[in-house]
């Protein structure tokens, strides 16, 4: 338990970032989401958007409407107040299942580097229920964790200029699905047909921070 008050730092003249920890861990992320909920409930004037990170919450506001200094103080106070654990609620969220064809271009390479067979890689990747930590990099791109330690590899040295949408990748302790055709440096294990992002859908992003996700191998 940390005793010093959480640090609130500026992100430009229209944003505050409060930091609740310095590493990727579930408990810290629970506090991030709880703080986002409480802030949304109080809806300070001029608050525009909340962006959760692994261990941070950023509040964007309109400085011509919001009292920036009051918002900073409020954010610090809320962040310092202990919150009841949300574990039970998060555990109750339904698991989003992503049917995945494990035929990615890096499957062989990952297996080799991890000292496993292809099937073992698929088993390890599809056995877990992952947690959505944050969205970003591209619209609807969810950073999922935590990956089995046996599959943890650094990013590819040479990022691909174009990763096809639906590609399922891993990097570090994370896994995720590329919603759009973008450049990407993750190791690609397979593909899913599920659309993680659809501008015509409400909400457009399939996954939200705190959601639970499992990959289901299909032939």
């Amino acid at each position, binding site marked *: 338990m940390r005793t010093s008050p959480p640090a609130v*730092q*500026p*992100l*430009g*003249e*229209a*944003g505050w*970032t409060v*930091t609740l920890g*310095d*590493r*990727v861990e579930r408990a810290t992320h629970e506090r991030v989401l709880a703080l986002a909920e409480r802030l949304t409930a109080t809806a300070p004037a001029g608050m*525009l*958007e*909340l*962006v*959760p*990170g*692994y*261990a*941070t919450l*950023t509040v*964007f506001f*309109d*400085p*011509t*409407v919001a009292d*920036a200094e009051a918002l900073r103080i409020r954010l610090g106070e809320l962040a310092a107040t202990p919150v009841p654990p949300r574990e039970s609620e998060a555990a109750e969220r339904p698991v989003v299942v992503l049917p995945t064809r494990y035929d990615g271009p890096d499957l062989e390479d990952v297996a080799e580097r991890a000292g496993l067979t292809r099937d073992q890689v698929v088993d390890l990747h599809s056995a877990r229920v992952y947690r959505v930590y*944050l*969205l*970003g*990099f*591209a*619209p*609807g*791109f969810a*950073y999922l964790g935590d990956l089995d330690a046996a599959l943890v590899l650094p990013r590819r040295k040479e990022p691909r200029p174009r990763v096809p949408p639906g590609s399922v990748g891993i990097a570090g302790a994370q896994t995720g699905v590329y919603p*759009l*055709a*973008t450049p990407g440096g993750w190791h690609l294990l397979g593909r899913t047909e599920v659309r993680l*992002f659809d*501008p015509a859908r409400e*909400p*457009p*992003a399939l996954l*939200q921070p705190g959601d639970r996700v499992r990959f289901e191998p299909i032939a």
Partner: protein
Amino acid sequence: MIEVLEAPPFATVQDAGFSAGRSWGLPPGGAMDPYFHTLANRLVGNPPQAPAIEWALGTGVLRLTRKSRIAVVGLARVQLNDRPLAAPAFAFPVQAGTRVRIEPDARHRFSYVAVAGGISVPEVLGSRSTYLPGAFGGFSGRLLRAGDRLGMGKSDTTPALEISVTTTGRPMPPGDLWLRVTRGPQWDRFDQRAREAFFSGRFQLAPASDRMGYRLVGPSIHPRGKATLPSEAACPGAIQIPDGGQPIVLMPDGPTVGGYPKLAVVIQADLRLLAQCLPERGIRFTEVSLEAARACYSPPR
């Protein structure tokens, strides 16, 4: 209808961008130079945030199928049916069928072309801006090409003689471009030496700069300790310091989160000057307080 007879190398439809979406990874987007964009709209009697063409990197030719009024803001040379405008102007009437040739001046990166009534494209996620990385928004989610036909909105207003533009705009000053910055969230990770290197350094734009981010070349800046952090929110103007020590300034289409430390953030009012900056110019940074930055902030909508 606006027919694109010859497309410039880089032209998209932009408005003020997406007002919501950062929480799921959609950046604010919108015009790289909101001041010029707003000005172009006001000159033809449009609401300030109407969709207009963001035009860059070269010459192109448009033809309007009906009589209208058009504004070109950004020091561009304009020819109507192969004849230069009688007097240089930002806004002028155009007869149906007239070919409008637009050749941007070399002192800016982005010019804005607005027509009375605005450009009519479908609204996606609350905006009419093109988001190129996602291939959606604006006109078919892509750059304009020869042969494209863009709808024009209805215009029943006569442009006011007095134009007032509320978006903060400084003229592009000669010499090095001085950008005002506030301290970034990871300011404390940079020691005195790194900060001095940043504030005394002269940077230039690398060729790999686009609507997502501008890469700078100059003195190397390095944080203390670990070079990355667990991903957290970023924003347009944020100055990320990646492994190599050469800063990247995030622009309107840039990622909403990132794991590189952010040393400083270019204030909103100055980001358009960087957007317009050309590779040969020197770029320098000076620190201002959050209060000073807020004093010249203008809401995006």
